[in-house]
């Protein structure tokens, strides 16, 4: 089958159908095919062939020097002494903490499980109010210090962005509509988990906020998002916490940062019931069996299968499946029996 310049032995829709039925190899082929096509285009564009080698997940922090460019000035590499720039040092420390969390919790070697170098760009642009993952590396603005500040210093922001890398390599969830909202959801989930670990919080005293340290006092709200109460973090927060209020517009890649509130609330409810570590394992193992176009119903189906499997293997508590099922039902997602 040929689609423009892309040729496949097995059509993608067949791979997707088999992935839905639980074929890990088909899921991997589907994800890899898409990624390889994208990488191939990049490689051809740059006339550069990169060999894939196993790395150590070493950190490199670059200073963009307020330009809208990446890798302007190398500021600190793995095992080098701290610099005089505290933003550089914070980006170094937080990305290291995230890397160690995924290593200790899931034996993941960097975001791609192949030791991908963790490259961070700080001081990107002028008064730049954002942080993003671009498929290879992270980029952080300083914020305008009127409403936003210190994106690179926020542990949940750094974990959120690095989790986009993990998702890219494990499931490559397409960044639009429900698959995109799931992509955002997984980043918020592990942003929250890593934040609680970093701050030595527990589920009782955690604030369940995302981005509370990147907003200033002048910002009309306490954070960017709330896992506990989606839609309440600030005056602009339109996240729903139930499928009844699902956003069906076209903005924000069809609501990737909006509808993520629905599974986010389900995660919070599950964590309250069975604890954050069991949830972390269930969510991580679920991500491994999702695929590029997976939607909310696919997520529900796979997370319940995963919960059952982990319960049978005595890796999570024996109420996990019930707790997860009830949490998703509370936000309006119930499994349809065939």
């Amino acid at each position: 089958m040929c689609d423009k310049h892309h040729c496949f032995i097995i059509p993608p829709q067949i791979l997707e159908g088999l992935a839905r039925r639980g074929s890990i190899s088909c899921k991997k082929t589907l994800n890899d095919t898409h990624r390889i096509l994208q990488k191939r285009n990049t490689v051809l564009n740059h006339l550069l062939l990169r060999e894939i080698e196993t790395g150590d997940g070493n950190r490199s922090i670059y200073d963009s020097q307020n330009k809208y460019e990446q890798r302007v000035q190398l500021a600190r590499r793995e095992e080098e002494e701290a610099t005089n720039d505290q933003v550089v040092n914070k980006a170094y420390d937080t990305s290291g903490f995230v890397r160690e969390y995924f290593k200790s919790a899931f034996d993941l070697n960097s975001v791609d499980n192949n030791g991908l170098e963790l490259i961070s760009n700080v001081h990107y642009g002028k008064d730049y109010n954002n942080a993003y993952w671009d498929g290879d590396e992270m980029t952080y603005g300083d914020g305008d210090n009127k409403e936003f500040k210190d994106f690179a210093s926020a542990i949940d922001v750094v974990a959120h962005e690095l989790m986009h890398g993990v998702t890219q390599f494990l499931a490559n969830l397409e960044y639009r509509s429900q698959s995109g909202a799931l992509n955002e959801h997984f980043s918020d989930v592990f942003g929250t988990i890593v934040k609680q670990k970093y701050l030595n919080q527990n589920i009782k005293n955690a604030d369940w906020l995302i981005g509370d340290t990147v907003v200033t006092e002048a910002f009309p709200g306490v954070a960017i998002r709330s896992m506990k109460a989606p839609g309440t973090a600030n005056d602009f927060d339109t996240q729903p916490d139930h499928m009844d209020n699902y956003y069906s517009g076209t903005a924000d890649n069809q609501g990737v940062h909006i509808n993520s509130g629905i599974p986010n609330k389900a995660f919070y409810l599950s964590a309250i019931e069975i604890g954050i570590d069991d949830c972390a394992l269930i969510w991580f193992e679920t991500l491994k069996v999702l695929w590029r176009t997976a939607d909310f119903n696919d997520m529900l189906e796979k997370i319940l299968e995963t919960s059952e499997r982990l319960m049978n293997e005595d890796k999570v508590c024996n109420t996990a499946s019930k707790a997860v099922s009830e949490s998703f039902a509370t936000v309006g997602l119930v499994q349809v029996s065939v």
Partner: protein
Amino acid sequence: MKYEIHVEGGFTGIPKKYEGNIDISEKDTSRLLDLMNNPNPLDNDIRDGFLYHVTLFDTEKTIEAQFDEKTLPPIIRQLMTG
């Protein structure tokens, strides 16, 4: 020439709008229109990047284009950063 820039997405997910008049030379106007008419393809790998929906209101027509963090021309970024 009037412009509108709608910024959406980003880690914060909070949309923002910029509008105003462009006061640039005829040569720069021509370059800008060329960039608007031939935008580079969006980068599908970016997560949490801003999306920039740009509209220029020329005397005779309206021109729209969409850019991301990797494809946004500096001349358009300058309209937002001053």
